[in-house]
């Protein structure tokens, strides 16, 4: 039994729907409910009990052996984040328990506690301490962290003067030099540019390879396949699968099966508390203007993203188009054509649209990851796996399904004859096409 690193036993977490978010409020909210507020204050407990409880996690049990790398997968709201928060001790379980044997390092985000006014050096010490590193350890690793982040020249400059790339590199460098026995990582931290994601995944592979125990929470099947020898699937707060990642794929896909061509915001949805832009809706619109999840491969369609800018800010509306197996097909941002990443915005409601051409995506299922990014801070808002749709293989390209490639574009070819040119052949219209 000594080789167990993590034991999770009958873990459950109950939230009272609408409860925690409503309970505090600004004075204005309070005045709005002035009459009921005092009585409500006294009766809060009874009222809370009257609401239907919501189990974000229920009866989850599993064991992780020392040195094992386990991926926890599940769709949005499956309970992944709750599990992560309980194991990181950020929040308490309602029932059951978990034991972790060894030093735990949990990374739900990189750069937690970074302060723009402090220098790189000061932030390394502060962030290291926040992540649970001892001062002596930070001193020992200091040069390595600075070198990894490639910020040697700016180590005594306040990080507010850093480029967003430098900032992220430094934040990640501190996290990467944490040396726990058990590493609990949220894949959300791999949101960023491709280079940064690669660095994150590479570092995690290295950690797992050194015999450390890794718990990797993700909705990206490909990353789990790559990193983990075992996968646990959560669905609606319960464990529904525990086995090899290869076996997990069909189970995971069956969960993603539902086609949800439209996503609408839910007021109780928790968002980044300091986010100034909130996503309010997203959908796939068919060529005829209807919202529908099954798109013919030969017709164009639109992806629409609705959002509210609450306060003047600078941001980028971006989405990632993923195949149902988690592989990313493309990422696009609304400043791309203008070659800017972040654009200043004024408050208001907006709808952004992207037209996808016909004859472009390969038939299959897709979903979107939508983010409102901003420089040097976590996104204003982020939706992990919303808007699920399917490209149907009807149309002229159906017969080409056998060829390889992530996308299936139909390009115009041209030819030039060099030198002595033959008479053009008359094509038999019956045998047209390619």
């Amino acid at each position: 039994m000594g080789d167990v690193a993590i034991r999770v036993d009958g873990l459950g977490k109950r939230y009272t729907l609408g409860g925690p978010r409503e309970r505090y409020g600004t004075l204005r909210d309070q005045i709005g409910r002035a009459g009921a507020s005092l009585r409500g204050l006294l009766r809060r407990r009874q009222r809370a009990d009257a609401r239907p409880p919501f189990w974000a996690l229920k009866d989850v049990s599993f064991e992780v052996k020392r040195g094992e790398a386990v991926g926890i997968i599940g769709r949005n709201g499956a309970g992944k984040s709750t599990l992560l928060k309980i194991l990181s001790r950020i929040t308490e379980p309602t029932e059951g328990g978990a034991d972790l044997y060894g030093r735990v390092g949990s990374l739900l985000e990189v750069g937690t506690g970074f302060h723009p006014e402090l220098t790189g050096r000061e932030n390394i010490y502060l962030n290291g301490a926040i992540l649970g590193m001892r001062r002596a350890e930070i001193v020992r690793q200091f040069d390595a962290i600075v070198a990894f982040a490639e910020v040697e020249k700016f180590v005594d400059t306040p990080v507010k003067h850093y480029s967003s790339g430098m900032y992220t590199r430094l934040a990640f460098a501190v996290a990467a030099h944490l040396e726990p026995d058990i590493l609990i990582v949220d894949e959300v931290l791999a949101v960023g540019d491709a280079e940064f994601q690669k660095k994150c995944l590479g570092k995690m592979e290295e950690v797992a390879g050194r015999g450390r125990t890794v718990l990797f929470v993700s909705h990206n099947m490909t990353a789990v396949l790559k990193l983990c020898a075992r996968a646990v699937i959560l669905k609606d707060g319960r464990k529904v699968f525990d086995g090899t990642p290869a076996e997990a794929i069909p189970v995971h896909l069956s969960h993603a099966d539902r086609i949800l061509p439209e996503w609408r915001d839910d007021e109780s949805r928790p968002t980044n508390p300091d986010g100034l832009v909130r996503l309010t809706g997203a959908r796939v619109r068919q060529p005829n203007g209807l919202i529908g999840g099954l798109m013919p491969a030969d017709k164009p369609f639109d992806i629409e993203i609705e959002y509210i800018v609450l306060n003047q800010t600078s941001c980028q509306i971006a989405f990632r188009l993923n195949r149902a197996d988690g592989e990313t097909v493309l990422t696009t941002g609304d400043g791309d054509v203008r070659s800017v990443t972040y654009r200043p915005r004024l408050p208001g409601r907006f709808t952004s649209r992207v037209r996808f051409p016909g004859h472009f995506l390969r038939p299959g299922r897709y979903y979107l990851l939508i983010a409102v990014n901003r420089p040097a801070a976590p996104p204003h808002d982020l939706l992990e796996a919303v808007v699920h749709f399917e490209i149907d293989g009807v149309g002229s390209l159906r017969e080409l399904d056998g060829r390889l490639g992530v996308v299936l574009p139909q390009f115009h070819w041209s030819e030039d004859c060099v030198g002595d040119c033959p008479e053009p052949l008359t094509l038999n219209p019956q045998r047209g096409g390619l």
Partner: protein
Amino acid sequence: MTPTQPLPPEVTRIRPSGGWRAVDLREVWRYRELLAFLTLRDIKLRYKQTALGVAWAVIQPLLNVVVATVFFGNLGGMAGRTGTDVPYALLTLAALVPWQLFSYALTQSSNSLVAEQRLITKVYFPRLIVPVASVLSGLVDVAVTLALLVVVMVAGPLLFGWPVVVPSAAVVAVPALVLFAVLAALAVGLWLAALNVQYRDIRYTIPFLTQFWLLATPVMYPAGIVQDARLRLVYGLNPMVGVVEGFRWALLGTAAPDWGMMGVSAAVVVALLTGGVFYFRRMEKTFADVV
């Protein structure tokens, strides 16, 4: 794992906790470096992006003394009712040493958990560290104001012909009194910090609370105004009364404070602090969900 088997050195047990819990002092001690870094950060950030910088730490108490001397001391006639030949300005400055710490700590610690919500929702550490760090960062003011007091004590007789004030042997009590002030600030700060997570109304009450508390504390007037012995005990229910009187006694060599009143103040601090710690610990587990 059966209970008889020895546990490896670092085991994290995660269980739902009961309602009331004591503080895990060993754990807080393990996170002492984080406490130090957070305190240092608060100190470093305080006067960033200000034109006058650290000079503010001197200007604030100085202006307070000038205002108090003009309005309370002279116009309000308090300078004549101190019952000692120590100049009114010095009496006020000595009182400001703990009062500034207290009012700063009140404001900072009550908002501390909300201000650190990113930390609280992303990383585990004993939450107690957050309000404690904001109280401790107020110690800079104590140091600066103490230094200022020494300067004024020396400069006063030279420039304005004030009587020379020399602290008595009671000056050795200063560290204990600083601790008293820190604990008093923490006692109130913990309650406000935990309450503010749940009810953001708290932050709007802070300016009033600080203002009323200042008037209820003998900062700009001598504690001797309250004559009746029984009333003095009630007066002592405000722990800052004991703290401020203690500082005057230790720094300016004035008459020893009313020990009955001091005792009441100390008892109130102990009671508030114990209650605050338990309340904080009880609410702590929901901070990440509610904040």
